[in-house]
């Protein structure tokens, strides 16, 4: 009799079964639709594990996944390690070639701040509002990093929202891009930037790390690792480290990041009406960020002799390189010989830095 009482089967609740559906949906989107599979697949499986009764996997001080979560996310190890790999994957050339494009990445953070105030007005506290707002930056590790500090109970919902919207960039952004630009604007061909030297590329991560961290010290965990990874890449003398950071290490961390984020999504934390607001506000933030990047480009065009194609402003959200690819696709629909891809990488990378700085500002003000 004791054996039967301790079987998970007889301790299932309907709420757990609803979460199974959420888990299966995430796995389905990852496998069948190829939506951010590297993250959504382990997150989906983590959701299933978190909603199996009596496993003890997330039991405080004892559970296997609880330990991974505690070490990796609560102690803020995983997001910086992901940023180390992202840095090793990033070419700052397009940004250094045309530094003015950094304004587009900065403008795209407007959605983050508008959503912060909107969420606060709706009734979330400031920490929760900041965590929801950062979804607009479309940067998964930064969202997880900020949520772990300010609103750990929302980490699962915010991470899933961020990764879902990143996967849906090709669906969400084009209508906004077309609505805010004319056919003529979409046909604007960008003028080539100057050639960037190898020395500039080596110096940039060091100088950028020092400057950004001196201004916003709370951004140090992410920015320092991002720039260190980039220094590995650009120095050309530690190819082994660069390769490990952007491949093996990032893959290992991704497995445990996804699994432990998914495992935070138990029925009692996820099945709340707040989660619906999180998804709606996250989408709102993302849309405003897209629009503000485009509008900034149009504003800059009023003063620039060589006009910017305003589509590249949409890449100021930091879904790298998905947002840049969407810019190329929408631009090519207007003029198939217009190659905007590499130009869009400038604001795209600036968007990553901008979102980390926004998260650092929230941490400084609210923690």
């Amino acid at each position, binding site marked *: 009799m004791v054996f039967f009482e301790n079987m998970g089967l007889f301790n299932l609740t309907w709420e757990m079964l609803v979460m199974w559906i959420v888990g299966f949906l995430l796995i389905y989107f990852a496998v069948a639709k190829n939506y951010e599979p590297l993250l959504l697949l382990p997150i989906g499986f983590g959701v299933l594990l978190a909603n199996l009764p009596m496993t003890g996997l997330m039991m405080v001080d004892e559970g296997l996944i609880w330990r991974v979560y505690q070490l990796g996310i609560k102690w803020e190890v995983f997001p910086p390690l992901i940023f180390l790999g992202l840095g090793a994957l990033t070419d700052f050339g397009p940004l250094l070639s045309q530094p003015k494009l950094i304004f587009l990445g900065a403008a795209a953070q407007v959605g983050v701040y508008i959503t912060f105030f909107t969420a606060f007005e709706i009734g979330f506290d400031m920490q929760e509002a900041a965590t929801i707002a950062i979804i607009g930056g479309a940067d998964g590790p930064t969202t997880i990093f900020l949520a772990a500090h300010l609103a750990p109970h929302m980490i699962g919902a915010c991470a899933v929202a961020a990764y879902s919207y990143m996967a849906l960039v090709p669906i969400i952004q084009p209508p906004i891009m077309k609505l805010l630009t004319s056919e003529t604007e979409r046909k604007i061909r960008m003028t*080539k930037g100057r050639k960037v030297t190898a020395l500039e590329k080596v110096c940039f991560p060091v100088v950028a790390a020092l400057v950004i961290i001196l201004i916003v010290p709370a951004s140090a965990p992410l920015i320092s690792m991002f720039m260190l990874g980039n220094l590995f890449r650009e120095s050309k003398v530690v190819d082994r480290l660069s390769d490990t950071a952007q491949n093996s290490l990032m893959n290992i961390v991704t497995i445990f990041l996804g699994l432990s984020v998914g495992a935070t999504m138990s029925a009692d934390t996820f099945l709340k009406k707040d989660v619906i607001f999180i998804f709606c506000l996250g989408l709102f933030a993302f849309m405003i960020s897209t629009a503000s990047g485009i509008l900034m480009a149009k504003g800059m065009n009023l003063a620039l002799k060589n006009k910017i194609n305003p589509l590249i402003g949409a890449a100021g959200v930091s879904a790298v*390189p998905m947002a*840049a*690819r969407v810019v*190329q696709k929408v631009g090519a629909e207007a003029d*198939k*010989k217009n*190659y905007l*891809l*590499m130009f869009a*990488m400038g604001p795209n990378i600036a968007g990553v830095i901008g979102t980390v700085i926004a998260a650092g500002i929230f941490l400084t003000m609210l923690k």
Partner: protein
Amino acid sequence: MATNVEAPLAGNIWEVLVKVGDSVEEDDELVIIEALKMENPVYAPADGTVKEIKVAKGDVVEEDDILIILE
């Protein structure tokens, strides 16, 4: 008169769609360059015949590298 077809962006040659001696028309696709996991077609700037192909599948090219010479 020879016309150079240059790489509009840096990337890897994904596919070369023409052979030496082929006649092409303006806007025909000549080469596909893969960059950031996106396939980008490179189009013929004018009518002509393929005189020389300077790249092969898998080659890494920089922006403005000559890919094909038309005449």
